[in-house]
């Protein structure tokens, strides 16, 4: 199947409005970050008991989505599943935008962001027993590898596409297992401490990656007036079903391991305590129950319902991360036998603070903006077929309102450019 890729021209009103709105929100995020940097982290909801807040939630969420969508893109370029080819480039572009967002999220969560470089002084100023330092290698390498991967795909070298794709898939899996290890190796936090965490993270990553890809695919095709291949969406949704089932199994095993052992207070609290509704309604409900109810129902096998199921998974995995980082960290540690009185034995509270939320919103919009700019400056979208063009022309009589597509001349000098450089400064 020969397929040409094009970029959107980005002259339509909708595109400009989208970029403008996202740019404005990004500015808001920057202002929030500046405030927190100048004033201190008391503007955040985190405390000495719940040390990590929204930026870390976003970081691991984005890393998951990024690793997931990169792994999926290798379906095309390594495993030769030609039917997924139209979304291959978009998946890689998305992976780069998301990992950039994740790195920024980690950086702005640091108390001294100007010391960010200290995370990357491997083996010299870094303590390599730290999971953070090891993940520094993984994240940095992943960023470079995925940009090079996009460059290779755009250049169209088939052999290197395959070789580099193999490297990328392995590295992406490592990246997310490493992220899981940050939490899973913490013996002091009872609810986090489980060897299954890296695998659970990896599965959640791939699940949310597939779901996000379906969402982005449907949205992009709709807004740029292309025809959506239904068989592609259905086969992706089948993949999604399998991953959701594996994820549900891993979550079940994780909780059961903790509940079976006599030291079960922390997990029991997270399943029945104040924040249990986040787990049951938002995590289990949105990631497992609702999507599976839709996907297993033959009558609902339409694009609209698959879209709803995918959105539900993407949102639900966010709350899975949220539940892990914030409520589960809030359970007090048992310093001494007995019931610990006062604040040191109380469950930690997390306040929703405007500055933190503004900053998180800014990180979200930055990822969206990078993706939009990537669509404009890189040839990531599949070309319209002759029939689609004809249908679009018939539907819209004045062709000027239609999103124009460059099919003949590629924009010179933009192929292979990492989208990071396209960020307006």
């Amino acid at each position, binding site marked *: 199947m020969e397929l040409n890729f094009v970029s959107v021209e980005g002259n339509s009103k909708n595109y400009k409005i989208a970029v403008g709105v996202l740019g404005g929100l990004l500015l808001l995020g920057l202002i929030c970050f500046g405030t927190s940097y100048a*004033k*201190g*982290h*008391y503007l955040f909801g*985190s*405390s*000495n*008991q719940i*040390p*990590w807040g929204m930026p870390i939630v976003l970081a691991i969420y984005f890393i998951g989505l990024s690793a997931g969508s990169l792994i999926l893109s290798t379906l095309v370029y390594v495993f030769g599943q030609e039917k997924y080819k139209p979304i291959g480039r978009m998946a890689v572009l998305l992976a780069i935008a998301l990992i950039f967002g994740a790195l920024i999220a980690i950086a702005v*969560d*640091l*108390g*001294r962001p100007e*010391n*960010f470089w*200290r*995370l990357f*002084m491997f083996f010299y*100023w*870094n*303590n390599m*027993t*730290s*999971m*953070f*330092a090891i993940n*520094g290698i993984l994240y940095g390498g992943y960023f470079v590898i995925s940009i090079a991967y996009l460059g290779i795909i755009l250049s169209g070298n088939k052999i290197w596409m395959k070789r580099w794709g193999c490297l990328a898939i392995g590295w992406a899996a490592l990246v997310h297992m490493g992220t899981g290890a*940050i939490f899973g190796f*913490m*013996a*002091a*936090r009872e609810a986090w401490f489980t060897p299954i965490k890296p695998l659970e993270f990896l599965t959640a990553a791939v699940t949310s990656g597939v779901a996000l890809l379906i969402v982005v695919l449907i949205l992009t095709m709709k807004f740029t007036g292309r025809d959506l291949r239904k068989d592609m969406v259905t086969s992706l949704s089948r993949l999604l079903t399998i991953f959701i089932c594996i994820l549900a199994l891993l979550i079940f095993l994780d909780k059961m391991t903790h509940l079976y052992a006599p030291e079960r207070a922390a997990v029991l609290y997270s399943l029945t305590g104040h924040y249990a509704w986040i787990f049951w309604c938002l995590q289990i409900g949105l990631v497992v129950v609702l999507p599976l109810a839709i996907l297993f129902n033959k009558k609902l096998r339409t694009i609209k319902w698959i879209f709803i199921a995918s959105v539900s998974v993407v949102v639900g995995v966010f709350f899975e991360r949220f539940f892990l980082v914030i409520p589960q*960290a809030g359970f007090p*540690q*048992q*310093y*001494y*036998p*007995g*019931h*610990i*009185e*006062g*604040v*040191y*034995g109380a469950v*930690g*509270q997390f*306040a929703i603070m405007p500055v933190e939320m503004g900053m998180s919103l800014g990180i979200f919009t930055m990822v969206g903006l990078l993706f939009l700019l990537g669509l404009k400056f890189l040839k990531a979208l599949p070309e319209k077929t002759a029939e689609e063009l004809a249908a679009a022309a018939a539907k819209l009589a004045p062709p000027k309102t239609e999103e124009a597509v460059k099919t003949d001349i590629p924009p010179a000098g933009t192929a292979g450019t990492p989208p990071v450089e396209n960020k307006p400064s």
Partner: protein
Amino acid sequence: MARWGMVIDLDKCTGCQECTIACKEENNIPHGSPEEQRRRQDPYWHKVIAASEGEYPTAHIEMVPMPCMHCDNPACQMVCPCKATYRRNDGIVMQNFRRCIGCKYCMVACPYGARAYNYKEQEDLPYDRIDPPLRRDLIGNWPFPHRAHGMVEKCTFCFHRIEKALMEGQQIGTEVVPACVEACPAHARTFGDLDDPDSEVAKLLSNRTSITLREAMGTKPKVHYLTK
């Protein structure tokens, strides 16, 4: 090389919090507002927890003062990505403010909740430490003397007192002790060299039943508790 440790007699402790206040004064730890107290955003290097057991007629409360345990096998040092937390040759676990990036991973890893994050720019005076470094062979890197927001802080066993005493030839454990030990009105705390058989702490540990907190974590704390 000495291996500094502390022994706290739970039988003598009354939970008066004098140690917490002395620590705040000595190390110039900022005082938080009630709102910050409620949100647990005020830094404490030392805390006293109350652990209760049983119901009313047979209820029992144990007051447990908790400084940093200065573990021989510190979980915080293991996870610090930037070598900001390090263990000195004499066993004191220190935080280098120059290197700390404020990732809070050590706070997640510490099983004793001994670490506190500095949530805002403090009005207080600079962190009171003697400058310049006295014994580089002993202490390794010299920590940044001024505190800024966005860094993790912790108990230092009042290392500045120890340094000074070593220089002036004073006896550590009898003449010079950390601020919390000095302040304790009930003489519940003893400080000294755990490796020195003649020291007060070594004698107490050999004569009385002692425990360390959360032994299952394998951190080997150097703060020991004498049981009632």
